[in-house]
């Protein structure tokens, strides 16, 4: 019997971690997620889709995701953008103008590829990974790095509280055990 692509490459983080990420988002009050899926965290998408408390919107470009989630956020649904680390670069102008200048709260769920703890790191990923934190710093976007599931729900809840408190984007960066 032919294997599916996903079975062949065995790319998935622990099912338990997937459920805990989505559960943590829900518990923290996130109810809207725009997304441009990638390899490391994409297992969260079907779990988000199955939960009717989330409205999820696929996009063509992370800058678009930022603007759509900004509209959803100001419309009254606490919103997130799920993307790869490269999406921070692509979406940086909208993160600056909508997130920082206009002051719209939103959560960035970022697959932190190319970090030291990225289990799939390679010459493809390392350079954008190295520059991701300086880019976030230059945008003055607060962030939390997740290497494993320790205190995952507490950290997500704290990040969401922070985004509401400062009315700005706050980023969750997933690496380590989330990049298997």
């Amino acid at each position, binding site marked *: 019997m032919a294997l599916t692509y996903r079975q062949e490459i065995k790319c998935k983080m622990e099912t338990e971690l997937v459920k805990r990420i989505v559960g943590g988002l829900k518990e923290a009050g996130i109810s809207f997620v725009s997304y441009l899926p990638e390899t490391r965290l994409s297992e969260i998408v079907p779990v988000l889709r199955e939960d009717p408390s989330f409205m999820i919107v696929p996009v063509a470009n992370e800058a678009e995701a930022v603007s759509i989630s900004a509209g959803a956020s*100001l419309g009254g649904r606490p919103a997130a953008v799920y993307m790869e680390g490269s999406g921070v670069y692509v979406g940086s102008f909208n993160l600056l103008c909508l997130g920082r200048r206009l002051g719209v709260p939103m959560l960035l769920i970022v697959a932190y590829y190319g970090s030291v703890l990225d289990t799939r790191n390679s010459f493809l990923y390392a350079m954008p990974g190295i520059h991701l934190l300086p880019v976030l710093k230059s945008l003055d976007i607060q962030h939390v790095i997740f290497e494993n599931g320790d205190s995952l729900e507490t950290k997500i809840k704290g990040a969401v509280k922070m985004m509401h408190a400062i009315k700005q984007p706050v980023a969750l960066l997933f690496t380590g055990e989330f990049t298997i």
Partner: protein
Amino acid sequence: MNRYDCLEFLVPSMTDQLVVGSLSGQRVEWGHMSRHPGNLLVASMGAALGMGIGLALVLPHRKVIVLESDGSLLLSLYNLPTLGNLNPSNLAVFVFDNEVYSGTRISEPSATAGKTDLAGVARSCGVERATTVRDLESYKQEATKALTENVLRFIVCKVEKTTGHRQIQRPTEDLWEHKYRFVRYLETTESKQIFLGRG
């Protein structure tokens, strides 16, 4: 056809709609002629349509109007496949296309002065009711349908190049003040808290 006249036609119809504007001269003109509390003039190129989509999705019972320009839309064409696939019936998009980068002051022609047909691009992305209007009467007919019907409409309005907005006094309200006014209006009209957190 003059952009100011097009915008002015919309003003008396504003009741509980939400209006998202981008950065071009229409932001200055609309802000000058409309004090509607449902205005959200984001003052950024390439973001208004996305924000309008987000608002339309989470508030499906409210009419959302997006005021875009050719330059801003060209910067964010990635919105059109998403718009076509989501097809939010409560969204009306007006693209004021003067075919120039007028912000340059020397008015370099934009792509729409050449072969690019924005309504055609929208249609090919799945936006069925995308059209181009070139005179005020046609505009009024399409705008009336966009305001009254519960169906996604995308209207490219070919307007004259103008610098009239430069004669208008700029608002003193900054973006945060503007945003808070919009959000408080929504909180009141939707009877729900939008900005969360405790003091």
